[in-house]
């Protein structure tokens, strides 16, 4: 197991976080007074209507946006320090593969940048290709694959270098239900096996409830957290847990939270 810092120290901690974008039409408050603590090994889902700041919050954690006020720490450091220490794997809302590189070449890219040796690069590329069921597609170029396959390749790329924190922005939004179910199971297995801390954005209530130990419900204008639900579901989750009474109760609470956010407008 990797050293994830002090066990009692939160991995991600936001206190009174505000983030305002200055746009041509005036300021947009993307995040307002966000307080959230994420412990090591948690699986946290962010759910909420479009434009409520889910992507912005994930990007702030990854030091791709700078908060306007409040504090945000990652492993006790500033997000930018954590970024330079390569603490994150990030899966964007779109695949974002480099078209001049093959699928293998794309997955190998972060490994090249982080200085893994050739042999380790090859092994890791093969391993993650198998994990996302793209074995045999390594030599293809991104534009020769379907959108869903490209998205899986981008997940493989984020997994290849084994960062302790995995941030995923609607990674399965473009996939069909069956593939999505299978990848949900895969992500859970991966999480159980590696003990990574995962931040996961989704629009799907069942997906959020199925995957998470903690569900963060957000609402828009300004983007803020309206509810944080700690899931009582056990670690081991077969797909049919989605028909259990507990599961349906949590899903209900999430739906109530989303609806309440809408009424405030």
């Amino acid at each position, binding site marked *: 197991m990797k050293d994830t810092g002090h066990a009692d120290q939160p991995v991600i901690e936001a206190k009174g976080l505000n983030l305002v974008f200055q746009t041509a039409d005036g300021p947009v408050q993307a995040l307002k007074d966000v307080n959230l603590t994420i412990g090591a090994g948690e699986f946290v889902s962010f759910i909420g209507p479009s434009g409520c700041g889910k992507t912005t919050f994930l990007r702030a954690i990854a030091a791709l946006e700078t908060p306007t006020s409040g504090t945000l720490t990652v492993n006790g450091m500033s997000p930018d320090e954590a970024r330079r220490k390569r603490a994150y794997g990030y899966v964007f809302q779109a695949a974002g593969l480099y078209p001049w590189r093959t699928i293998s070449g794309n997955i190998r890219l972060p490994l090249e940048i982080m200085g893994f040796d050739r042999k380790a690069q090859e092994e890791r590329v093969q391993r993650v290709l198998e994990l996302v069921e793209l074995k045999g597609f390594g030599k293809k*170029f991104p534009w020769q694959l379907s959108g869903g396959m490209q998205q899986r390749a981008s997940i493989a790329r984020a997994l290849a270098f084994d960062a302790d924190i995995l941030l995923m922005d609607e990674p399965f939004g473009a996939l069909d239900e069956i593939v999505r179910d299978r990848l949900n199971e895969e992500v859970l297995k991966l999480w159980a096996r590696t003990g990574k801390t995962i931040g996961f954005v989704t629009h799907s209530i069942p997906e959020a409830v199925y995957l998470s130990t903690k569900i963060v419900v957000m609402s828009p204008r300004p983007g803020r957290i309206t509810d944080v639900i700690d899931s009582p579901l056990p670690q081991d989750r077969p797909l049919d847990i989605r028909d259990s009474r507990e599961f349906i109760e949590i899903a209900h609470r999430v739906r109530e939270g989303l609806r309440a956010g809408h009424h405030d407008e």
Partner: protein
Amino acid sequence: MSLALILGLAFWLGAWATNALVARHPFGRTPAGRIFVPVLFGITLLVLWEALVRAFAVPTVILPAPSAIAGKFAESTGLLWADFVQTVLKGALSGFVIGTGAAFLAAVACDRVPFLRDGLLPVGNFVAALPIVGLAPILVMWFGFGWQSKAAVVVAMVFFPMLINVVAGLGSAERMQRDLMATWGASYWQALWKLRLPAAMPFVFNGLKIAASLALIGAIVAEYFGSPVVGMGFRISTAVGVLNIELVWAEIAVAALAGSAFYGLIALAEKAVTFWHPSQRT
């Protein structure tokens, strides 16, 4: 109507019918077919040209027949070769390599130091707007009559178009692609080498293609302002003076061939390097 004109028109109609047929036939979509159509079209133009010149007895000084030009070409290959080496290989090519190479390095410097970009690009646009006919005599005065002054003119002509293209190319990577580099903790040089340079390649080749045609024009025209007794521009200006018009046209043919070959080589390299770009995918 003269016989030459009738034969010329007959050939034209025949070639037209053939091309229309080939375009509809599956052969027209094979690589050979794709070359066949424009080649036949070009030959038709030459035949018509020959027919018109003969039919109307156009004076050589106005327009020589293609056959006369070809004859001149064949008998003066030694001379044409010497001019080609002087103007294309020494003047245009060395100026092209130095100019585009320096522009490329300058673009990377501009990219690294924003202050340079803000200073250099406006100056660049200004220099790019200077007319070559004004610049060439001065550069000939500075660098002498030899090929060096021609190369200098070419450098001055290609530098800024190339610079502007490469700078635009270096900024063309998408935001998500750059964000990925940031999340991997990539250094400036890693991101440049593995993302921004590959992403810039379509722009780089655009710049190279513009520079290729400018280089040939620049090297020829610069010779009008002073040169040793060899070179395509020198030959054209002196041959016009003694009404040796066939030789002028032979030089023009060399320039056209050299220009097409130059451009074609760059287009081939472009296809190999930017195969991934939507405009190149087959």
